[in-house]
Each structure stands twice: as structure tokens, then as C-alpha cells.
């Protein structure tokens, strides 16, 4: 009996001893061996790192009051595939209404989280709400709203994660987005919303708003005029630019075809391109203004010098064939009339005396060089350099071929004339800093001569429809053939009218541009000049210049 008792006691002792040893070993592993793991596990339950993103900064027009881009939350729908409670409801619903999500679900059924769709339309939200499936939940996400859709080419848009995709949204993404702040929250292990303490782990940076030089009303008015022109002429592209030459502020920048920045579901990428900044064209006769300016500056010709334009449509100068449009055909006329009538033969005969200097002048005027405007992917433009010239090049360059320029470069060049020879760089961002050349690039005499010619072009030349009584309007037209597969196509043209409107100290540079209309035998004087005129009048009324 005593022996049995002893055995039993020993067994019980060893049993308990084993249990204690197991507990001790376990404690060793928990407290010593895996200490850091369990400490961090505990920390995770009590302390939480929260990253908060500042709201994206607004983009405003020059008044600082009208929004061009603002924040608007969008709604996304999601499911938790791993823990779906009503699979039999969710799957048929997805298959019927969100087939893409259904396909994704088949690949992601083991995942913790899956978006059904983001940036839901009100119809989709109603549809999901009516389905009343508890597994499908909504999530509020930051998004953007653009109250002035016509400024979409300038503002650009953000992507689904609210990062700038193009335009100002892309270029100023960092400034608009700010920097997220990271905070550590101390909670009790079961707490949902509330915390005991909050500490900043990483300081963020507040978003900053962006004030542009655009005038939202003028932008709208220009857009309306462009729409009208596009409908009337059935033009493929129409663009307009209104600039204050004294400070380089772009007041309106519109291009058609356009897109709705608030509806980007089926976005045509081509329509999002800002063709005023990102595309260069061979602009034709409008460039004669700058060839003439170069000639005046170099003393090659004066406005009253007589030039023989031979009263023909086609002639040969130094063995090279030169064509001019029928409406410009003239005989022996003063050089000023060569420009007013836009005669290619006359300008070619004069400019050949400039030689390589023409290239230098074009470069000084800012052609072939970016303006440095605050906008992504600005086009350089192109001026054929003298070392690549053929015998035709000097003539082509005189009337706007072998030189491609953006409409912005053209506006800047007209700005030089408006500013009496000083070059002011165009800008889209409202600032008091004006980037202006230290010295005038052209003499006052050369500027006055070209201004008079431009004024006469409106009074009695190719831009007569742009005449506005009581105002000084100086403009030049250009009709250029498009280069298609290496050959100039005479039935596919671009039409430009660019110039300056002036009254007292008030000045505006306006560029009106139309690309390809189905009607044949038309010129800039009938396509682009009426648009220029309408824009000029709208601008004068808007600015109260009466």
C-alpha cells in the first residue's frame, strides 16, 4: 500500500513537474526567445500609425475666387473576397452589373480586399444601394471637380488615385498634393474610433493653392466663340489664345476638340492635348511679319522701298519657284504693301538679302525655343538652321515654311511688337514677377514700321474683317498647306490670324487658329479673321474698354 502510494505520488509529481516544465519552456519562448515579436504584437494592438493626406490644393483663376479645379469626394464600392458572407448574392450581381469586377474576383477570391468599381456614377450608387447586399460596401475617396470644363486643357486632370495626370495638375502635383502627415495613436486594444494619445511621427506639408493667370469668364467667352467657328466651318481643330503682352499673363487658352474633365471614363487622349503649347505648326504668311521686322532692323529695306511683285501668281527667284495666292498678286508696290497683301514673291525678293541673319532673328524672337511656360511637355518648335538649308530654304522661311512654331511662341513674338521690342515671357501662373528682356531686341523705328504695316493690314489688307472702329487693331493672317506624308497638300490648310488690339495703355495679343475645313478655296481672311474679330470684341467688352 505504502509502495503503491509512493509510486502514485511520484507519477503525480512527475506529471506536475512536466506540466511546469512545459509552462516554463513556453514562458521562456514567449518572454525571452520571442520577446521582441510579442512586444511588437502587443504594440500593434495599442498603438497605430495613421497617415493623413492633406486635401489637394485648389486651382483658381486670376481673381483668386473662381475655382478651376476643386476637391470632390468620389465613391468606390468594394468587397472583402476572403470573408464574403453572401457569395450567392454577390456573384450574380457582379456578373450582371460589373462583369469586369466579376472577372477580377475569379482571380482574387483569396484576397482580403477588392474594388468593385471606383468613381461610381450616381446611377451605379443607386443600383448598389437598391441591391442591398451587405457584403458590398462603399468607400469615400478624394477626387477632383472642374467647374470650368473649357480650361481642362490647361488644368489637366488627376488619375483615379488623385495624382496629376497632365497639365497643371501634373506639373504642380507636389505643391497641390502637399505631403502626408504620419501620426501614432495610442488606443486600448478594443477601441474603434477613440484614442488616448496622439503623437506626430512624421511632419507633413500643407497643400498650396495655385492661382493661374486665366480669366474664367474670358476663357468661357473664347470657348463659346471657338465652338461657333468650329460648327460654322466644320473645322477639325480650332484654338485661341489671349495674352496681356505687358506681363505675359495668359488670360484665355482654348482649344477644340475638347474633353470634359469631369467625365473621364471614355477619354480620347488626343482631345486632351493642349495644342497651343504642345503642338507646332508651319504657320505660313503670319511669319512674314517677323521676316519684315528682321529686314527693317538690318536696314535691308524700308516700308516705302518699291518691290516688283511681277503681277503674277508664280515666278522664279534665283531659279527657285515661288507661288503666291491669287488675292495677293500685285505689281510694283512699296514693301509695306507686300506685307499688307501678303505677297510671297515680294517678301522672298527682299529677305534673300538677309541671308543667315534671318535664322538669328527668328531665334531671337523665340521661335525654335521653348517659352519656359509652366506647362509639361512644351513643344520646342523648329527653325531650319542655315547648315541644313537648301536653295529654297531662305524663301520658304520668309513666308512661314521650314519654320514650325507653337501658337504660344507666335503670341510671344507678337508680344515683342506690342512691348516696343522687349520680350516678355508668357506665364500661366499668377505672379508679380515679369520675365522681361533687359534691352529691346528691336529698334523703335523697326517696331513702329511693323506696327503701321499691321494696322494697314487690318484697314486695307487681308485682315479687314478684324477692323474695330475706335481701336487700334494690328493683325496678320496666314494660310498654310499641311505637310502630309512629306508633301504639301494644297487642299488641307491651317488658317491663322494673330495680332494686337490697343487703346491707350491697354493691349492684348490675340491668336486665332483654325485647322482644316472641308470648304476649298478659302483663306485665313475668311476663316480665322472673323474669329479673331469676335475674340477681340468679346475681350474689349469683358475688360470694359469702351
Amino acid at each position: 500500500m505504502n509502495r503503491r502510494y509512493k509510486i502514485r505520488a511520484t507519477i503525480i509529481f512527475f506529471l506536475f513537474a512536466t506540466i511546469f516544465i512545459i509552462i516554463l519552456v513556453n514562458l521562456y519562448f514567449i518572454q525571452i526567445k520571442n520577446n521582441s515579436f510579442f512586444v511588437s504584437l502587443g504594440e500593434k494592438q495599442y498603438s497605430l500609425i495613421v497617415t493623413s493626406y492633406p486635401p489637394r490644393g485648389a486651382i483658381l483663376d486670376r481673381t483668386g475666387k473662381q475655382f478651376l479645379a476643386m476637391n470632390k469626394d468620389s465613391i468606390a464600392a468594394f468587397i472583402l473576397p476572403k470573408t464574403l458572407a453572401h457569395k450567392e448574392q454577390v456573384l450574380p450581381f457582379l456578373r450582371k452589373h460589373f462583369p469586369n469586377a466579376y472577372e477580377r474576383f475569379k482571380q482574387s477570391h483569396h484576397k482580403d480586399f477588392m474594388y468593385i468599381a471606383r468613381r461610381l456614377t450616381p446611377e451605379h450608387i443607386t443600383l448598389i444601394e437598391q441591391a442591398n447586399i451587405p457584403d458590398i460596401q462603399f468607400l469615400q475617396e478624394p477626387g477632383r471637380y472642374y467647374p470650368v470644363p473649357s480650361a481642362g486643357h490647361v488644368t489637366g486632370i488627376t488619375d483615379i488615385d488623385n495624382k496629376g495626370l497632365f497639365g497643371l495638375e501634373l506639373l504642380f502635383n507636389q505643391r497641390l498634393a502637399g505631403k502626408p502627415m504620419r501620426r501614432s495613436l495610442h488606443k486600448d486594444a478594443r477601441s474603434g474610433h477613440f484614442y488616448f494619445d496622439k503623437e506626430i511621427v512624421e511632419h507633413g506639408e500643407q497643400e498650396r493653392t495655385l492661382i493661374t493667370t486665366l480669366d474664367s469668364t474670358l476663357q468661357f467667352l473664347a470657348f463659346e466663340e471657338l465652338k461657333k467657328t468650329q460648327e460654322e466651318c466644320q473645322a477639325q481643330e480650332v484654338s485661341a489664345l489671349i495674352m496681356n503682352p505687358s506681363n505675359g499673363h495668359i488670360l484665355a487658352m482654348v482649344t477644340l476638340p475638347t474633353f470634359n474633365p469631369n467625365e473621364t471614363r471614355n477619354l480620347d487622349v488626343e482631345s486632351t492635348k493642349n495644342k497651343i503649347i504642345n503642338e507646332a505648326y508651319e504657320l505660313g504668311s503670319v511669319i512674314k511679319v517677323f521676316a519684315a521686322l528682321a529686314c527693317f532692323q538690318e536696314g535691308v529695306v524700308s516700308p516705302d522701298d518699291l518691290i516688283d511683285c511681277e503681277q503674277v501668281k508664280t515666278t522664279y527667284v534665283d531659279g527657285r519657284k515661288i507661288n503666291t495666292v491669287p488675292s495677293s498678286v500685285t505689281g510694283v508696290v512699296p514693301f509695306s504693301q507686300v506685307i499688307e497683301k501678303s505677297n510671297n514673291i515680294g517678301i522672298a525678293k527682299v529677305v534673300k538679302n538677309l541671308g543667315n541673319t534671318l535664322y538669328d532673328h527668328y531665334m531671337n524672337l523665340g521661335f525654335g525655343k521653348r517659352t519656359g511656360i509652366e506647362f509639361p511637355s512644351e513643344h520646342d518648335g523648329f527653325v531650319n538652321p542655315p547648315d541644313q538649308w537648301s536653295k529654297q530654304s531662305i524663301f520658304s522661311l520668309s513666308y512661314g515654311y521650314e519654320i514650325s512654331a507653337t501658337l504660344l511662341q507666335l503670341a510671344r513674338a507678337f508680344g515683342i511688337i506690342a512691348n516696343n521690342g522687349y520680350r516678355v515671357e508668357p506665364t500661366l501662373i499668377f505672379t508679380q514677377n515679369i520675365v522681361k528682356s533687359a534691352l529691346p531686341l528691336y529698334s523703335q523705328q523697326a517696331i513702329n514700321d511693323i506696327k503701321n504695316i499691321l494696322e494697314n493690314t487690318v484697314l486695307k489688307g487681308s485682315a479687314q474683317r478684324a477692323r474695330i472702329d475706335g481701336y487700334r487693331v494690328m493683325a496678320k493672317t496666314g494660310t498654310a498647306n499641311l505637310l502630309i506624308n512629306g508633301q504639301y497638300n494644297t487642299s488641307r490648310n491651317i488658317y491663322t490670324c494673330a495680332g494686337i488690339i490697343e487703346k491707350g495703355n491697354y493691349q492684348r495679343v490675340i491668336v486665332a487658329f483654325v485647322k482644316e475645313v472641308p470648304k476649298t478655296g478659302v483663306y485665313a481672311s475668311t476663316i480665322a479673321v472673323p474669329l479673331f474679330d469676335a475674340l477681340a470684341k468679346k475681350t474689349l467688352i469683358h475688360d470694359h474698354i469702351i
Partner: protein
Amino acid sequence: MKKNFFTYAFITTHICFVVLLIYKNSKIIQLTYQKQTIEMKKKERLQTKEQLTQNIAAAYDQGSIKEFALTQLHMVPVQLQQIKKIAT
């Protein structure tokens, strides 16, 4: 007697300290809770403000204003020639 008094005073003081510490912590928690409740309300108000700002921006849509002026108010676009400056 003196010894007992000192012991009681010592214990009472410490109990008071403990009670005050508990009171302080619970007050902090209470105020933190209130602060967070207010923060949540502020967030809601900001969301409402943002919504209203969007509504205002949408109401300023120049296309709709123009259409309203033309169709409802029967206004006509003014031409530059029609405007005259009155000398003041």
C-alpha cells in the same frame, strides 16, 4: 500615539495621491474623448462646407447662366458697337 498618527497621515496622503492620479487620468481621458468628438463634428462640418462650395461652384457654371439669361430672362448678347461710354 505620535507614531500611529504619522502612519495614518502617511497612508491617507498616499491614498489621496492615488485618488488624485486616478482622477487626473480619467479627466484626461474624458477631455480627450470630448476633443475627439468635436474633431469628428468639425470633420463633418468641413465636409458639408466642401459640399456647399462645390454646389456654389456648380451654380456658377457660365454655360447654364448664359442659357438661363437667354431663355428665361430673354436677354440678348450685347455688341461692342451698342455700348456707349457716358462722360461723368
